[in-house]
């Protein structure tokens, strides 16, 4: 019997309907006041950590490089977006969207500038050089006093980051990265992770794709940065220190390198865990660390490995199972 498969348009329709429902339901819940302030704050925070994680996953999971300066791109985006919003050159919604784009582009340009020299290196060396660049960005922001107000903080940033805006950005980021990875370009990126020399011998411009991946990753980190700025309303460079980069990397590794769903789940869990564990006070960091150790021992490939979730695939599976179940039943009754 022929296996049941969903055609591409049907898949897109299923996904779109699911996404819109989730967004509307989420928005209703957020607006209804069922959740306390702390919970709503965490849910928003989960949103931009998801963007940060899936964007870093592109470089770490798919391209197979290990950069440690993701918070730097986030910082560039945050300041670019915040300054754009404060200047209010565009009216209303255009300003919101414009700020996000400005943030992304600024971060992407930084990504290209850093990526071209950094991506000549590999492994530990790349980690250290990106770490250095991340710190440089922070120090520069600290000292550009006339523009960023340095350590005193950039205040009065319009609070645009509503649930709707953050999660639309989450969906755009996940969707865009998913589409890139399913395309010819995605294959090229994966092949570099698998074997750089072989990729080169297949005619893939490895430098180009490395820098491109870095730039796309930085773009979304920048968008997440702007959302962060629009959420808390005040920016200090200390927000984007080395530990932030490490936290994002932790999310990606815990979720599973190369699994977008893993990044999403791990971002949700790790971001909300400190809140959930609040009653335990000083023990919570211990539990947090223990959890990481346990996951790494028993599931070193991360929570999801490199499995990715597909609603359509699940529907196909269920239908196929039901069908084979039926024919099996018929055969029995035939006997």
């Amino acid at each position, binding site marked *: 019997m022929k296996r049941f498969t969903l055609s591409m348009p049907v898949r897109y329709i299923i996904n779109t309907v699911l996404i819109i429902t989730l967004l509307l339901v989420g928005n209703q819940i957020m607006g209804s006041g069922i959740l306390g302030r702390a919970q709503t704050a965490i849910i928003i925070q989960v949103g931009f950590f998801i963007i940060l994680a899936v964007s870093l996953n592109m470089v770490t999971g798919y391209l197979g490089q290990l950069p440690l300066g993701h918070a730097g791109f986030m910082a560039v985006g945050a300041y670019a977006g915040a300054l754009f919003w404060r200047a209010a050159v565009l009216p209303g919604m255009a300003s919101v969207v414009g700020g996000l784009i400005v943030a992304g582009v600024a971060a992407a340009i930084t990504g290209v500038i850093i990526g071209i020299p950094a991506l000549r290196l590999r492994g530990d060396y790349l980690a250290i050089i990106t770490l250095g660049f991340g710190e440089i960005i922070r120090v520069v922001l600290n000292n550009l006093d006339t523009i960023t107000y340095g350590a005193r903080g950039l205040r009065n940033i319009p609070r645009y980051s509503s649930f709707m805006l953050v999660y639309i950005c989450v969906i755009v980021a996940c969707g865009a990265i998913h589409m890139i990875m399913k395309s010819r370009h995605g*294959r*090229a990126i994966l*092949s570099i992770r698998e*074997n750089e*020399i*072989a990729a*080169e*011998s*297949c005619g893939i*411009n490895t430098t180009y794709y490395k820098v491109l991946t870095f730039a796309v990753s930085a773009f979304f980190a920048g968008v997440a940065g702007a959302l962060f700025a629009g959420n808390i309303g005040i920016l200090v460079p200390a927000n984007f220190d080395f530990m932030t980069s490490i936290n994002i990397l932790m999310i990606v590794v815990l979720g599973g390198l190369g699994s977008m769903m893993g990044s999403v789940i791990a971002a949700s869990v790790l971001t909300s865990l400190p809140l959930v564990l609040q009653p335990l006070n000083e023990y919570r960091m211990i539990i947090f660390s223990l959890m990481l150790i346990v996951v790494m021992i028993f599931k070193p490939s991360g929570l999801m490995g490199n499995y990715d979730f597909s609603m359509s695939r699940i529907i196909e599976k269920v239908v196929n199972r039901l069908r084979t179940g039926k024919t099996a039943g018929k055969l029995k009754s035939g006997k």
Partner: protein
Amino acid sequence: MLKVTNMNVYYGNIYAVKDVSFHVDEGEVVTLIGANGAGKSTILKTISGLLRSKTGSISFAGEEIGNVASHAIVKRGMAQVPEGRRVFLQMSVQENLEMGHYTQQGATMTERMEGVYERFPRLLERRKQVAGTLSGGEQQMLAMGRALMSRPRLLMLDEPSMGLAPLLVEQIFEIIGELNRAGTTILLVEQNANMALKVANRGYVLETGRIITTDSASALLEDDTVRKAYLGG
């Protein structure tokens, strides 16, 4: 088709290839033989653009490629099967072949893939299998199949016999012969001089970065110094 003149390659201060000149004509199988460290792989890497020659020129089909980036060289019709096979271990056989078609435009993929499967029926059997679970010989076939996906005018093979059982080596060399009869020009780098010279038209013998002798393959097989040095007396 391929003409290398005065190639000089250095790794830092140490020279690896000194004043090497050779050529490959259309339709030929040419082999570069030599012991470990003779500079065979360095020459291939330089031709494919991974390393640069300090002097001289490399021309392919009448065009200078000495300064062309390696990915762009593939597009011009030169494919390489790198040393140690280097298949994409976590991708399936089919995906590996798809990667080989990367530089090609248009809808030629299925047709070429069928061609590759025809030549390597084993790969068809293992189409969906992850390449990392293939045996060494199958991986070599896959690496060759992947290179053939771009329908190269010149195919360069770097040590295709490395780490393979004698029976498989014979099979691989048979395929090299078939490919040549089907019209592909081949540049073969090998340590297994005996097998290489049997399939080749002409050969160059390398020693510590220089070409020490060149002749038709059949003559080299009979040559005393070559026999002593590489064919075991």
